[in-house]
């Protein structure tokens, strides 16, 4: 591979982290915002360049590989970076959402803005690192690097119940991370590779697969740990609470990108290394995800009155589709999950962004206290309706292809669960459209009239429009041209060139 591209990949991760360090060391505020803006933008430019240069013909291998030794080479730990066909779309997602969240944070005028930017930059660097890591130790390490700032941001800039939310988030997610770490260490020890390098682990497993019962308990550990991190029912209760309290940029990055860590880990690590273990748990996982995440949480979402809590629950619900796609254990299902992860990441980030913009105008998240905002802020209304449509999975948005592929894969796995999943689409249409209607149409409540009389709501300004536009453009791009994602994913999953679901155009 071209060595300069490998260095570019390193640079993409180092830029936000380095900028965070410089700002933390006491850069004046006006330079800090400029530096932060540059550091949020650079990774996206690099990601787009790497995407355009990606060698399509052998996407199952890693491109842009580079290895840095950190002193634990004897334990098979080294900072090994690279991208394969599954990692590439996720890396791109992290770069897009990171830029949008960063731009939105820059205009937010938050108190202690410099600290906010530092934490957000660390989180961004960690997210990029997660998807660029070939070494599963650093894969975990970068995840934690991104997770810690989330806790602090919720605790300092959070909304209602922020202390309780921050504590609950910390304990749930640390417990989940510890369990998945144990699973990863178990893989390291049991595979006999004596290395955390995913490529070497795959080779070791290809030479001699792990015993069935070993795969089962490692699979259980990983599913429990990753499941907590991805809010698998009934371990999801941290998510709505945390997202309800989190400041918008943190919620965008966490719900949009960081939460996908667990799913990505299952696809990138568990499926190739412990396929039998996953098969052992597939039905239990599918039932939890289908009944719990999609149906139960779906109904709970319908009952929400708080816009941000509703978005939190809806993201829990959509994770159910991803788990169902993984439980189907087929190439189509897995490919669909990657598509869905990217699409959901973009749409949920857009929704969290718009929810905060709505809050700036109505000074409330309570759906029953809103109404009629569309007359005063038509552009905001248009964005919100588009994002809601994307969330429901309307054709034209990337979500449609993801959900469709997952349903196709699920049909082979279980007809009944497919029916449940399709019912979930109706549920999400009900709550999504009802929320849009409550916020933007119908008569304004008395409460709202009083607020808008004091502060007449202005429509979206350019500083809000720009991040929203970036996210919406990406959603539409992947909606009309899903091949951009599905092709590398397809080839990463199938070393032999077989066309996947063929949702091209």
């Amino acid at each position, binding site marked *: 591979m071209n060595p300069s591209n490998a260095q570019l990949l390193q640079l993409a991760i180092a830029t936000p982290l380095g900028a965070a360090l410089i700002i933390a060391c006491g850069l004046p505020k006006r330079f800090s915002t400029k530096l932060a803006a540059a550091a949020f933008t650079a990774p996206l430019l690099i990601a787009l360049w790497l995407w355009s240069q990606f060698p399509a013909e052998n996407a199952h291998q890693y491109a842009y590989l580079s290895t840095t030794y950190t002193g634990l080479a004897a334990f098979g730990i080294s900072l090994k970076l690279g991208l394969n066909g599954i990692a590439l779309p996720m890396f791109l997602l992290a770069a897009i959402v990171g830029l949008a969240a960063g731009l939105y944070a820059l205009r937010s005028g938050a108190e202690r803005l410099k600290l906010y930017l530092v934490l957000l930059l660390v989180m961004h660097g960690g997210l990029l690192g997660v998807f660029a890591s070939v070494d599963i130790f650093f894969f975990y390490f970068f995840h934690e690097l991104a997770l810690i700032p989330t806790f602090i941001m919720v*605790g300092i800039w959070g909304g209602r119940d922020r202390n309780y939310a921050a*504590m609950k988030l910390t304990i749930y997610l640390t417990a989940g991370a510890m369990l998945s770490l144990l699973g990863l260490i178990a893989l390291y020890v049991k595979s006999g590779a004596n290395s955390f390098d995913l490529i070497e682990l795959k080779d070791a497993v290809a030479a001699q697969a792990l015993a069935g019962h070993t795969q089962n308990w490692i699979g259980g550990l990983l599913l429990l740990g990753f499941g907590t991190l991805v809010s698998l029912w009934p371990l999801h209760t941290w998510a709505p609470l945390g997202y309800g309290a989190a400041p918008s940029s943190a919620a965008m990055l966490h719900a949009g990108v960081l939460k996908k860590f667990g799913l990505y880990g299952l696809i990138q690590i568990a499926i190739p290394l412990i396929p039998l273990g996953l098969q052992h748990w597939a039905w239990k996982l599918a039932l939890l995800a289908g009944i719990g995440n999609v149906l139960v949480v779906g109904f709970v979402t319908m009952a929400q009155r708080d816009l941000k809590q509703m978005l939190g629950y809806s993201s829990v619900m959509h994770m159910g589709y991803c788990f169902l796609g993984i439980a189907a254990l087929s190439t189509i299902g897995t490919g669909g999950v990657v598509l869905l992860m990217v699409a959901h990441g973009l749409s949920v980030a857009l929704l969290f962004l718009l929810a905060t913009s709505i809050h700036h105008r109505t000074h409330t998240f309570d759906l029953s206290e809103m109404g009629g905002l569309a007359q005063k802020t038509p552009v905001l209304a248009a964005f919100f309706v588009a994002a809601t449509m994307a969330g429901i999975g309307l054709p034209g948005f990337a979500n449609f292809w993801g959900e469709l592929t997952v349903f196709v894969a699920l049909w082979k796995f279980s007809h009944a669960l497919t029916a449940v999943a399709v019912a979930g689409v109706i549920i999400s249409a009900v709550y999504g459209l009802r929320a849009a209607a409550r916020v933007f149409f119908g008569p304004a409540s008395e409460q709202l009239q009083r607020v808008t009389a004091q502060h007449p709501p202005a429509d979206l300004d350019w500083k809000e429009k720009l991040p929203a536009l970036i996210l919406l453009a990406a959603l539409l791009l992947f909606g009309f041209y899903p091949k951009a994602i599905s092709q590398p994913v397809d080839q990463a999953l199938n070393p032999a060139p077989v066309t996947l679901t063929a949702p091209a155009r």
Partner: protein
Amino acid sequence: MSTELLKAVAASNEWWALGPEIILACAALGLLVLELVTPKAQHRFIPHAAGMALAVVLAGVALNFGKIWDGEELFGGLIRLSMPGQVARVFFLLSSLLVCFLATVCLPRARVPRVEFYHLLLVVTAALMLLAQSNHFVMFFVALETVTIGFYILVSYYRERASSLEAGLKYLVLGALSSAILLFGIVLLYGAVGRVEAGGVVHTGFEFGTVLTFLRENPGNFLATAGALLVIGGVAFKIGAFPFQIWVPDVYQGAPTPVTAFLAVSSKAAGFAVLLLLVHGAFAPLAGVLVPVLSLLAAATIIFGNLSALTQRNTKRLMGLSGVAHAGYLLIGVVASFTVPWAAGAVWFYLFTYLLASMAVFGVMAYVAGPDDSGEELDHYARLARERPFLGAVLAVGVGSLAGIPPLAGFMGKLLLFVAAFHAQLYGLLAVAVVGVVISIFYYFGWIKAAWFEIWTPPAAGTDSPARPLPAGPKWVGVAALALLTFATVLLGFFQAPLSGWLLPR
């Protein structure tokens, strides 16, 4: 003693090999002389002299790190040089240097004599270094008692303060008990082994090597096994392992902050140095008994430490009880080292990360504490991050590292211990450790929360809780020391080469 023998001793390099300890002991005496001969106005330089002595010896040991003959026995087998011994020397010197720094922050606030503190600090450091290299139970006991007696005085150093005196008394009573247990164990071993004559040289049951040979030949000997277990019990007191941890919270709370740090870091590390020395040396044949006993101790220590730390509001008690939990994690490493040789290196790695993080936290505690440092509560940290952002950042990194949160050094320490435990197939202990780590997140996070998150507190009612003054900001030495500790803690989180090179297999 004949002159020939004296000449032979003088000509050998045995004294050179003990240079660091001898220099420290001489420097300790030198401090007292300095106090006598210099005018009183110059006495404030004496702490710096002590720090200089420690720094010079530390540099000397570090530069000559590999220049020993691993396994060389000195003074007729009293002392045995080894690589773990060298690591321990570096550890104790570094720790004492930082304690010296903490003392220059804390002691001026109290009306106490200063010079004796540094004198005792140097003596105890030398004794700690000897302890980690001892090869003979008499040497072992004398070094351990020198350490313990030094601590009796240091703990009650604020002699006008009831809490400090109370802590000193508790440490004295329970310390004496543990010394008695230890001594009884040594005597039992001596009695069981007796005197062995081999090749015209008489060996006694005091020598580690003789005990090892005896235990290897008589694996089921009840007296010797009981003696070994009693010795381990005495060492467990130093570590603060269950059920010998009762003294920890009270003594940590009452002792002056530098002494608390000294106890938490050096005293605990000394326990582990000795434990590793014994279980892989003299008591190696007893692995069948020691593994279950130590496993039980580890599990109980982790559970007790974490559960009892959960409800603490006093920062020193919190550090003490969470330190008990750390001792439990380290004991897992000791258990694992029976089957995974590099686990001993992982224990030392963990101890170094613990040193860096603990000293950073104690440094912040020293600045936040008012004149009475035994009553420091979590509430006193409110608004610290806003008013003293530097101290807030150091605290967050230190506490985060203690909690084992990546990307900080403490996480790497825990990871290496967990990997070792996995290799040794200690799944039960691992489960306990993971539960313990998750519990510990609650109280460590509570501390960071107190310093960083703005929590609305009701305005103080009445005059019983007057507004606390702003903590004094550190001067440049303090800034440099804390910044270095923080930097090292962050760096070791992702670049372990500086430590792994000489602690772990390459």
